[in-house]
């Protein structure tokens, strides 16, 4: 009877945290729960008519490799079905009109929140990146240039900064490919160090979607693909956002 209740709740798109449950949210009947198509998720996410600043655009700090690869992908957005994802100051800006499900919704409305990867605002010092997404292939490419603030070993990016870039790329891919919202796991094998100020290319694929989880793999390469910087995988939990009630 409880299971039937969950199915009904899932169809209504309403999630409730049950007291005493070890999981944050109950298991859902996946077939009923996730109806949003990738196309509708993308169009809502990208918000073309907006005054919000898009940080995923070239600036003076971008190295020549990053600029040239960016241009190549911009060409692909015209003919090959690729989409350049905008990158706003906060994740909330990407989902206007939607809100987190009850178990995750936070009551206070602080406007000074910033997404971690866009917090270092001085151009070129922190995370310079842009993500391109292919809706039908469910594949993402992130162009990432780590700045001097992300240094670990002298002249090279700290492993933690690449881990964060991977989590962010997985996160956007998971959301658009299937409403993936929360990181469940990250597994990273570091192979080489990325020189500060150079381009690393993260290629993310969705391997499967099963049991309310999205499984993704990532390979991070140099521009010329001759150096493998890291291989990683990520698993994200699917959770449906709710419509914000009009007040």
């Amino acid at each position: 009877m409880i299971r039937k209740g969950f199915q009904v709740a899932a169809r209504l798109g309403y999630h409730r945290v049950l007291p005493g449950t070890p999981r944050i949210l109950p298991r859902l009947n996946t077939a009923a729960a996730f109806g949003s198509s990738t196309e509708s998720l993308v169009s809502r996410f990208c918000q073309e008519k907006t005054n919000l600043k898009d940080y995923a655009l070239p600036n003076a700090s971008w190295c020549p490799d990053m600029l040239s690869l960016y241009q190549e992908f911009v060409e692909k957005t015209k003919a090959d079905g690729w989409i350049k994802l905008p990158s706003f100051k906060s994740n909330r800006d990407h989902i206007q009109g939607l809100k987190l499900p009850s178990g995750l919704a936070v009551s206070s409305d602080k406007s000074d929140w910033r997404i971690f990867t866009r917090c270092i605002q001085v151009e070129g010092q922190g995370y310079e990146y842009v993500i391109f997404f292919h809706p039908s292939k469910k594949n993402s490419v992130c162009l990432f240039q780590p700045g001097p603030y992300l240094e670990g070993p002298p002249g090279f990016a700290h492993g933690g900064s690449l881990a964060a870039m991977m989590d962010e790329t997985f996160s956007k891919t998971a959301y658009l490919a299937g409403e993936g919202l929360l990181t469940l796991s990250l597994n990273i094998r570091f192979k080489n160090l990325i020189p500060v100020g150079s381009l690393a290319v993260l290629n993310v694929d969705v391997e499967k979607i099963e049991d309310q989880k999205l499984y993704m793999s990532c390979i991070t390469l140099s521009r010329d693909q001759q150096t493998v910087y890291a291989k990683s995988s990520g698993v994200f939990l699917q959770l449906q956002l709710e419509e914000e009630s009009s007040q």
Partner: protein
Amino acid sequence: MNERLLSSEEVILKDYSVPNPSWSKDLRLLYDQYMKKCEDGSWKRLPSYRDVAVQETEDFKNFFHGYRCLDLSWHFSHTCFSCAHPDSKLIKEEQMPQARVFIRSYEDGLGFEFVMFHNDVEKKTVCLFQGGPYLQGLSGWLHGGAMATMIDITSGMAASIGERIVTANLNIDFKRPVPLYSVVVINSQLYKAEGRKLFVSCDVRSVDGKTLYAEATSEKLPLSFFWLICKAGS
């Protein structure tokens, strides 16, 4: 609260791992508890600087007591760190002129507020961490990447052996998201050394220890050894 303008040298030498007004009550209480543990010398508070060169020097002093020639004044005139190491096989590398420890690149309370305590006999490092609003993932929650960063850095401290180490593998299982502004305790433990590989386990819990936010394992290597593996191909 008005602060006088610090001279540039004072800014460079400022230790950030001490309480400031943005620290919550939970963080301050835990800090006091761990400072008490330091009284008998078994635990040590690790200072934390914004300047990479200063941080490196302090890390070196903390973990490699016998080494004498590295002092601050020498360090300001030489930006290279690794060529000073007795058995370093690396070519001279200059640090980037604007290199900064990025977890210290925020104003008080906005980013990473943390302090680490290290027990060298037990090979443990505990990090008390409070994440601020610039570390957001989903609205109101800490970004997984910010959590991964702190896990990676804390694990690195547990594995510290007196030479620079890097991460070869990092595996994190996230159990629950961490609310922004809350305090978590990251416990890391070096549990195995195999050849030059160092294995660290880590868990992230709430202040009362009852909520588990994440578990992680990582494999660390000395940088010199990591370079050898890279050149050999993998």
